[in-house]
């Protein structure tokens, strides 16, 4: 299946990934050949129920609604690349 330049550009936008013109064209070719391979699924007669998540899907654990200690602010902030003592710094989004 051959996907178009516009389609791959749209997927790059959805993926929030930036590609050079050449790299995007290369990706278009790669995705086309992988998607062609995936079309083998069309041979399957698979009308029926959707797949469960494993055979144990019906079991879902629901936590008790109780108050638990929260994470330490400092331990969380240490992983933010741009921060001050109590906050993560983000670009201004409203002028």
């Amino acid at each position: 299946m051959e996907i178009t330049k516009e389609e791959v550009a749209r997927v790059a936008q959805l993926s929030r990934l930036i590609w050079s013109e050449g790299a995007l064209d290369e990706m278009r070719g790669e995705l086309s050949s992988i998607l062609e391979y995936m079309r083998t699924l069309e041979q399957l007669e698979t009308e029926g129920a959707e797949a469960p998540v494993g055979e144990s899907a019906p079991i879902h654990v629901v936590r008790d609604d109780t108050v638990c200690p929260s994470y330490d602010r400092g331990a969380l902030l240490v992983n933010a690349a741009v921060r001050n003592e109590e906050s993560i710094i983000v670009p201004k989004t409203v002028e």
Partner: protein
Amino acid sequence: MSVKYMTALALSRAIRERELSVYEALCELQRGIERTEGKLHAYLALDPARAAKDAAAVQTRMDRGGVASPLAGVPIAVKDNICTDHLKTTCASRMLAGFLPPYRATVIDKLCENDLIIHGKLNMDEFAMGSTTETSCFGSTCNPWNTQHVPGGSSGGAAAAVAAGSALCALGSDTGGSIRQPASHCGVTGFKPTYGTVSRYGLVAYASSLEQIGPIARDVADCAALMDAIRGRDARDSTSVVSENTPYLSALGEDIRGVRIGIPREALAGDISPDVSSCILNMARELEKMGAIVKECNFPLMKHAVAAYYVIATAEAASNLSRYDGIKYGYRAAGDLPLCELYARSRSEGFGDEVKRRIMLGNFVLSAGYYDAYYRRALRAKAEITACFAALWGELDMLLMPTAPTTAPALGVSLGDTLGMYSSDRYTVPANLAGLPALTLPCGFGSDGMPVGAQLIGAAHSDARILAVGYAYQQRTDHHTAYPKEVRA
């Protein structure tokens, strides 16, 4: 006996019998790591000071008595996508190169409760996306049987370290074969449990409906003991389930006479190395001699498993990895950029090529106009494959098939052939799609001198039975006791 030749269970026993201390065992292991890392590059992080402190605490508890775990005192290393709050968790990605989790995975808690000592983090394919460990942004791990070859992936660091004796045992994760395939390529034993048996809390998510944490070790008994340590329902993982109380370890030694084992005709047909086929058939003959009933069966849907797997896995990956935006944690692009450009630049610079390829593919199959043609169809294929397995369990107790179609390929040849690499996962992905337990264990060597692994797949929650059959096989054979000569701790 030197620590490097011991199983984890034997080491814990030796510590109890005061043949050596926990600290002495740890030090000997660390000397082995120093000897091998220059050739292997299995580890991404070590913390000898913390490990020594933990060893002292465990020794005190063992000296006082009352320590129940059969693995008490054993050092263990874990794949670098399992969160540890004292060691960085990088997923072998530039995106998380500096990430120190503020919490730790449930399996880490359980290892500590069982008095194991976490001494290092192991190399892997970036975000567990790959079959060779070559997509690690920190460089590939080499196979200890031949350092010109890959160890497999994505838990390549774990398998290589256990094979070389620079780890006694390890935890990996398996989304489409990432425990079993590297264990097979490195001649060690690896186990993917039934989906839900082990909590995924603290496992950095790739494809949540498919992946499980599991052990890589020298033999089946060590895998069973590790499973007993890490399994169990966890309120922090909504998909975790209650598994049977009886220890898997106590099921080992059960009589396997009469166990019905099927070999799918499709598994030994087509593009498969004759060495691998021959090893599998030899194993089948050995199992027959032990009283198992081995017969051929059909699994026609096997040919669709890779396509279904890569649609579902990449769709989930695209969703799971959308959290990496450069703001709260992870790599952030430099410069005073507008918000959306900051997101895109951080992701484009932080992720490697294979991760970006899978995100693109996942977003494509989920996008308007293609969702039904790819994603919905793959979900239906998953349901069909699950039903196909279920039908087999009426006549069979488990399946025997190769873990990989070839022995470990040479470094540098797989990444240039994306479809070929995906296709080589054809024996491992069916168990993930259906959520089934699967064990890989060494069953011989190829003419290139590289190990061959065989896989046993069973019905959901038949984990103990599969381990028992693997254990019985290892009592009769010595493939699992072979050690690589090229790199040895």
